[in-house]
């Protein structure tokens, strides 16, 4: 094939979408990349580094990994003791598995509560949808701390719930809910419910209703329509919503701290204690590193399903 001798190198370089040639291109990509690289990615390396150090009475309170001990000699001391401790000590292991368990259960409860809500909003008359959705988002915009705090007043021994139950005569002794795992579950489900409703709503509203009509036409009853059509098609939303709850909840601090008791072990709370009370930065760092590794799998799942949901968007 005869081709005009317009050099391939030149052409290859120019054969980019129009906007790519703009002078600002480097800046548009570079600035956010540099920012996130510096303030999001790089810090993780420091977490890894400090997790291998030993605590010290110094400012900052940890030893250097690399020390110059004169005559050009360099001593590198890596301390894997923290990781060994995390595995051996039932306290830390318990906190890790406890966090995962609490996160998993509350994710499930969030989905069970959020799915019908999202479904109801998506099937509501169109002029109702926006106000209903706004009502779900509204609490999300008010202070998280204050919303968790509200539950203290409700759940405590002489709080609103107990007073109400005593008044109705259902119980004759106050229930002990605050500072128990139940209170933590309530707090988590309450705080994270909007995170499942929104993605679920987004997938349900995109669902082509003629698919259900087609299923009905082919002899499918409403309940089966839901099981065979609606549910499978909303699966990306279910997974995205579930991960949006699960991942941050594993590392949650505020809720177990305010609503949980001393026996509610969660890794985020433990990290806080090690850092602020015990001033053991290396141990806190190794906890963070372990948490990070644990969360990679659900994070990859989230990315995968978000991309999938994005591709299926018409």
């Amino acid at each position, binding site marked *: 094939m005869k081709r005009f001798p317009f050099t391939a190198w030149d052409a290859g370089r120019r054969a980019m979408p129009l906007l790519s040639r703009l*002078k600002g291109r480097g*800046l548009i990509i570079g600035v956010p990349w540099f920012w996130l690289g510096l*303030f999001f990615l790089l810090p993780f390396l420091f977490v890894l580094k400090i997790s291998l150090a030993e605590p010290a009475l110094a400012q900052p309170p940890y030893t250097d990994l690399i020390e110059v001990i004169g005559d050009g000699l360099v001593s590198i001391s890596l301390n894997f003791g923290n990781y060994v401790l995390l595995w051996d000590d039932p306290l830390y292991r318990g906190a890790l598995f406890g966090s995962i368990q609490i996160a998993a259960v509350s994710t499930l409860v969030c989905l069970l509560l959020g799915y019908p809500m999202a479904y109801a909003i998506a099937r509501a008359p169109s002029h109702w949808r926006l106000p209903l959705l706004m009502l779900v988002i509204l609490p999300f915009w008010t202070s998280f701390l204050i919303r968790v705090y509200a539950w203290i007043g409700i759940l405590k021994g002489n709080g609103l719930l107990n007073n109400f139950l005593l008044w109705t005569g259902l119980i004759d002794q106050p229930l002990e809910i605050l500072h128990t795992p139940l209170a933590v579950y309530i707090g988590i489900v309450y705080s994270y419910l909007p995170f499942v409703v929104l993605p679920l709503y987004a997938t349900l509203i995109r669902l082509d209703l003629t698919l259900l009509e087609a299923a009905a036409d082919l002899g499918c009853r409403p309940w089966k329509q839901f099981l065979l059509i609606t549910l499978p098609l909303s699966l990306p939303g279910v997974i995205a919503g579930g991960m949006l709850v699960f991942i941050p909840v594993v590392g949650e601090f*505020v809720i177990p701290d305010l609503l949980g008791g001393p026996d509610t072990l969660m890794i985020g709370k433990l990290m806080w204690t090690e850092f602020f009370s015990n001033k053991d930065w290396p141990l806190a760092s190794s906890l963070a590193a372990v948490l990070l590794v644990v969360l990679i799998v659900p994070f990859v799942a989230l990315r995968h399903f978000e991309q999938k949901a994005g591709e299926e968007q018409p």
Partner: protein
Amino acid sequence: MKRRFPLLLTFLVFGYAFLYGPILSLIVYSFNESRLVTVWAGFSTKWYGELLQNDQLLGAAWLSVKIAASTATGAVILGTLAAMALVRFRRFRGRGSLQVMVTAPLVMPEVIIGLSLLLLFVAMQETIGWPSGRGQTTITIAHMTFAMAYVTVIVQSRLAHMDQSLEEAALDLGARPVKVFFTITLPLIAPALMAGWLLAFTLSLDDLVVASFVSGPGATTLPMVVYSSVRLGVSPEINALATIIVLCVSVAVLIAGILLYRQEKRAQREQNMLNATQAADVAERAQASR
């Protein structure tokens, strides 16, 4: 469909009661005369008065607002750039890593973000001497980092839904790329930027964990003050503060909601009108061609 609706309605009512009950209880008890939250001792606004005299709390609130405003502005700029990069430039080196880095902060536990940034700031101070201390600057940087992720998501979806031939048309008519951005792109994504700014503002205003890690001795934000007071138990002053926050946010969200609702209504009316004119247009032309 109809038969199942009562069930769905029950779920909705229950769901909203669950979401709003606790907030309502806070508001009601902020007007309680008694310091004891459990006993209703009559209507009073005295806790609001005390709130206004709490200098520590007011100072923290002012600091938080300052941090939130600069965070929101910075996050909108960074988030818009990231969204432009991801939507407009299909292929570039580092695209995948940028995509991951803007998604990760959305779900990353705050304790990790807080601790890792603190370690970075400490290391930077040791090696290059900046930031010289920790406080307002470090909190703002930390907040911008996670808030920009939210802004990116919002702006990204707006940009992706924008007809790209609008920008091409402007280029074709002789506008240079920078001008195209300011005359075409920016006005069209302005609502998304506004929403992003507000979200970043509230996220920053609300943050306890990250701020606690990266803050220094001099800088105590509002959530930090609230937290230390809340740990001691329920206090009517905090109830009053909560009521004010809820009120402000509700009014803002309500206004935004009404604006959105009206816009949708107007769009609908215009669509109806459009359909009518189109029908008339066709009829008219059919007549003319006869």
